């Protein structure tokens, strides 16, 4: 049972920590993040700005809840959907052969899309573990 608890704790801190970090970095420089979003060429200009304004704060809220151990299941649910969304965006970028800056953690030209995809997969696994783990009653 202690093993499971450690797994729960690590999944929570990993997922929450990464979301919190990614959110804070991008919230500090929304215009730079808007450029990264524009690089994906998926949204009109206003859409890029809206995503850049709102998404980092959603990530911050989700990350904070996960790290704090409050509302873990709904927070993990949002994290899972966001990761699916990020992965879809990266796959579309790879399919179109675009040369983009991932933007996952602010301006970051060093991360190739394939690595970002793997990272998202790991985070998705952590989110799914939090959603489907045994004894869902002990969420706090």
């Amino acid at each position, binding site marked *: 049972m202690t093993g499971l608890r450690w797994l729960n704790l690590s999944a929570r801190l990993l997922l929450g920590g990464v979301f919190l970090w990614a959110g804070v970095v991008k*919230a500090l420089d*929304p*215009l730079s993040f*808007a*450029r*990264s*979003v*524009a*690089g*994906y*060429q998926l949204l009109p*200009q*206003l859409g890029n*700005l*809206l995503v*850049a*304004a*709102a*998404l*980092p*704060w*959603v*990530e*911050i*809220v*989700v990350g904070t*809840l996960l790290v704090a151990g409050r*509302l873990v*299941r*709904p*927070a993990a*649910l*949002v994290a899972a*959907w966001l990761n699916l969304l990020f992965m879809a965006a990266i796959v579309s970028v790879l399919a179109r*052969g*675009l*040369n*983009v*800056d991932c933007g996952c953690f602010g*301006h970051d*030209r060093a991360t190739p899309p394939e690595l970002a995809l793997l990272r998202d997969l790991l985070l998705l696994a952590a989110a799914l573990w939090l*959603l*489907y783990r045994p004894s*869902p009653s002990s969420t706090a």
Partner: protein
Amino acid sequence: MSSFCDRRSLGQAVAIVLFGCVVGLGVNHHVLTVAPPTPVAPPTVTAPAVPYPLPVTLPEVRELLAAGALAVDARPRALFNLGHLPMSRSIPFEEFVTLPQRLAGLLPADRPLLIYCSGFGCRDSFDLAQLLIAAGYRDVRVFEDGFPAWRDAGLPVATGETR
């Protein structure tokens, strides 16, 4: 699939997203109201040497190329080989950022240089332009709309490794 259908978690998840959006839009409303920085004062073909990369638009690029400017592709070589502006030189930012001293003398000093990459979301052209200016090139301009705008305008595209 219980948790994805669990109404309480779903409702709370929606509330989390809404809360984050409201906070984010509240904090960043200035980002939405200011127009994205757009270049003003288009440069003329005979613009004097500038210490800062000037942004140029597609019509200006065509005019400058006709007047003897050199197009410089800042994207990775693989993308250059797939398609680039005719007569352009491949100077991938990612290769030269570690060796900026190699830029000196590499390109003609007497021609305006038009740097481009993959458009608005891509910074390589601007970053390379700054390296070129630091390396001593005097007339360096950035074609911000980049290769996608050139291609989408139906202008000729060259492929293969022509340097």
